[in-house]
C-alpha cells in the first residue's frame, strides 16, 4: 500500500489555516520523541521547553521581548516573499542596521537630546535598506540571484561587526573585550513594565504589523507585489514593473531588519557586540512562512518562535542540553509546515 496525492478541484481554505497548526503539532511530537531518545522524560521536556519560560510575568515579558525583532524582520520579509523575492539575508541587514543606529549612539554619546533614539531608528532602517539595496541592484542590473548574494552579505556584515568591535569602535575602557561602550540612557528604549526587560520596541513591531497589513491588503503596490509573486506573467501583462517589485521587496525587508537591529542594541543588548542576534534574521523567515505571510499570522508565529528561543535557554539550564536545540526545533517546524502545505492543494488517497 502506498499513499498518493490527488489534486483538489480547489485549494482548501481550511487547510491553509490548519496546516501551520498541524506543523506545530508535529514539531512538538517529534520534540517529545527527541527528548525520549536523549533519555529525558518527554513530559518533563515539554514542561521545561514550552511551559517553564512563560510561567510568570517576567517570562511573558521576555517572550514579547524576543518576539519583537522576529516580528519586525518577518513582516518585512513577508512583503518580499509575497512577490517571490527571496531575501534570505535579513540577518546581515539587521547587523548593518544595528551598526548604523549604534554608530549614531556612540557618536552622540554625550548628547541630551530626546531625538537621539528616533534618529537611531531611522538610521537603522536606512542601514538595513542600504545592505538590502546591494542584492536588489545586483539582481535588477546584473540579473544576479538575490538568494546567494543576500546570504553572502550576511557573512560580510558579521565580519564588519567583528572588525569594528575589535578595532575602531572598541570600548577604550573595556579591558580589550570586543564590544563598544554601553549606550547612554537617551539611546536606550524605555522599559514598558518595571522589573522586566520588555521595551518600547514592541510598539514599533506592532506598528509594523499594522502598516504591513495595510500595505499588503489595502494598497495598489501591495496588490502588484502579490500578483507578481503568484502569476508572474499576469503581472507583466498588466504592466507591473518587475524591477520595482524586486526593489520594494528587498528595501522593505532591509528597513524592517535594520530597525530590528536597533531595537536589539538599544534594548536588551545596550551596546554593540559580536552577539547582537542569535540568528533572528534566519528564524524570521520561518516566522513569515508559518504566519502565512500575513501580519496577523506573523504575530502569533513570532510569539511561538520566541518561545522556542526561551525553551532552548531553559533546556540548556535544566536539562543540560545544548542551546542549539532551539534551531533544531525551528528547522523541524519549517519542514513540517512545508510538507503539511501539500494538503492545501491535494488530498491523500491510499493506493493498493
Amino acid at each position, binding site marked *: 500500500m502506498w499513499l498518493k496525492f490527488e489534486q483538489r478541484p480547489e485549494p482548501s481554505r481550511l487547510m491553509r489555516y490548519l496546516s501551520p497548526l498541524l506543523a506545530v503539532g508535529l514539531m512538538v511530537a517529534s520534540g517529545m520523541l527527541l527528548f525520549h531518545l536523549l533519555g529525558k522524560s518527554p513530559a518533563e521536556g515539554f514542561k521545561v521547553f514550552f511551559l517553564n519560560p512563560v510561567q510568570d510575568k517576567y517570562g511573558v515579558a521576555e517572550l514579547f521581548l524576543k518576539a519583537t525583532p522576529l516580528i519586525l524582520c518577518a513582516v518585512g520579509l513577508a512583503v518580499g516573499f509575497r512577490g517571490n523575492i527571496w531575501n534570505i539575508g535579513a540577518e546581515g541587514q539587521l547587523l548593518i542596521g544595528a551598526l548604523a543606529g549604534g554608530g549614531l549612539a556612540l557618536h552622540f554619546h554625550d548628547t541630551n537630546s530626546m531625538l537621539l533614539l528616533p534618529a537611531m531608528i531611522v538610521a537603522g532602517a536606512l542601514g538595513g535598506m542600504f545592505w538590502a539595496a546591494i542584492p536588489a541592484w545586483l539582481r535588477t542590473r546584473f*540579473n544576479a*540571484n538575490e538568494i*546567494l548574494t543576500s546570504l*553572502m552579505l550576511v*557573512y560580510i556584515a558579521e*565580519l564588519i561587526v567583528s572588525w569594528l568591535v575589535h578595532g575602531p569602535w572598541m570600548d577604550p575602557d573595556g579591558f580589550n573585550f570586543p564590544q563598544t561602550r554601553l549606550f547612554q540612557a537617551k539611546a536606550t528604549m524605555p522599559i514598558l513594565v518595571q522589573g522586566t526587560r520588555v521595551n518600547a520596541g514592541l510598539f514599533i513591531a506592532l506598528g509594523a504589523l499594522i502598516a504591513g497589513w495595510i500595505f499588503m491588503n489595502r494598497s495598489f503596490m501591495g496588490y502588484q507585489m502579490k500578483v507578481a509573486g503568484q502569476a508572474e506573467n499576469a503581472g507583466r501583462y498588466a504592466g507591473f514593473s518587475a524591477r520595482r517589485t524586486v526593489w520594494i521587496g528587498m528595501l522593505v525587508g532591509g528597513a524592517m531588519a535594520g530597525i530590528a537591529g536597533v531595537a536589539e542594541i538599544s534594548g536588551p543588548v545596550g551596546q554593540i557586540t559580536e552577539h547582537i542576534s542569535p540568528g533572528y534574521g534566519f528564524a524570521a523567515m520561518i516566522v513569515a512562512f508559518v504566519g502565512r505571510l500575513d501580519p496577523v499570522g506573523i504575530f502569533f508565529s513570532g510569539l511561538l518562535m520566541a518561545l522556542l528561543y526561551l525553551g532552548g535557554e531553559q533546556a540548556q539550564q535544566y536539562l543540560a542540553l545544548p542551546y542549539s536545540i532551539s534551531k533544531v526545533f*525551528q*528547522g523541524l517546524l519549517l519542514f513540517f509546515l*512545508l510538507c503539511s502545505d501539500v494538503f492545501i492543494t491535494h488530498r491523500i488517497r491510499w493506493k493498493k
Partner: protein
Amino acid sequence: MQPSLLSAILFATIVAGTPLIIAAVGELVTEKSGVLNLGTEGIMSMGAVAAFAVTVHTGSPVLGILAGMTAGMAMGLVFAVAALTFMANQVASGLALSIFGVGLSAFIGKPYESQALPSVATWNVPGLHKLPLVGHAFFEHQGLVYFSWALLAAVAWFLYRSRLGLVLRAVGEAPVAAHSVGYNVVRIRYMAVLFGGAMAGVAGAFLSVFHTPLWVEGMVAGRGWIALALVVFATWRPARVMVGAYLFGGCMITQMFVQGSGMHLNIPSQFLSALPYAATIIVLVIISHNKATIRLNSPASLGQPFSPEA
C-alpha cells in the same frame, strides 16, 4: 616569488578547493535533474559532525567518510521527501534543510567541540611527487583530494557519455516529455538528490576529519552556499567547477599566507576573511549579467515541482 612558496600556495589552494569541488559536483548532478537543493550548507554541517564523531569513536577516517556520506544521504532524503513527494517549494525546503542541518549539527557536536583528531597521512603518488615545483603541490595530498578529481571525471563521463546521464538531463530539461516516454521522473530526481546529499556529506567529512581536523560549530562557514554559487559560475558544466573551486580556494587561503608571510600589510584580518564571500558575489554578477548564458545553460525545469498527475 620563491619556488617553495609558489608550491605551498598551490598546495593549499588545492586543499581549500577540494570540499567545494565535491559539494558542487554533487549539487550539479542534483540541479541537472531539475531540483534546486539550497540545503548544501546544512548537509555539509551534518556530514562534518557525523564524520568527526565516528572517526573519534572508531579511529578510522574511512569509516568517518562513510558516516559523513550516510548522514548526507539521510539529509538528502529529508529534502527529497519534502520537495519531491510532498511537492513543497524547493527554495523554502532547501532553506529549511540548511537551518535544520546547521542547528542539529551544533546540537550533536557539542560534546566533541574540545576534541582533536590526529591528522590523516597523505598519500604520495609514487614517482610524480618527487617532481620539482608541482610534485608537492599536486601529488602529496590526502586521499580525498584525488577522489575529487576522479569524481569530476566520473560525473562528466556520466552526464555526457552514459545513457542514464542522458536520461537525467532529459528529466531536468523536459520532465513532462521524459515522463511521457516512460521514465519515472520522481524516482530519478530522488536518486540525483541522494547523490548530491552524499557528496555534500563527504565534503563536510573532508573539512572536519582531513582539513582541520576538528569540529567547531559553524565550521562549514558558508562553503555550502559558495558551492551553490560555484554551480552557477560553472554554468552547470563539471570541468568549470574545478576552475571555480580553486579560484575560491585561493581566496580562502590569502589570509593565511598574508599573515604567515610576515608582510606587514595594514589590513584587518576580517577584510581578508571576507574575500571569498565578496568574490562569490562578484563572480555571480559577472556570470549572470548575460541573461542568455544563464537561460541557455541552466536546466529548464530547475526548481519547479513535478507531479505525474498533472
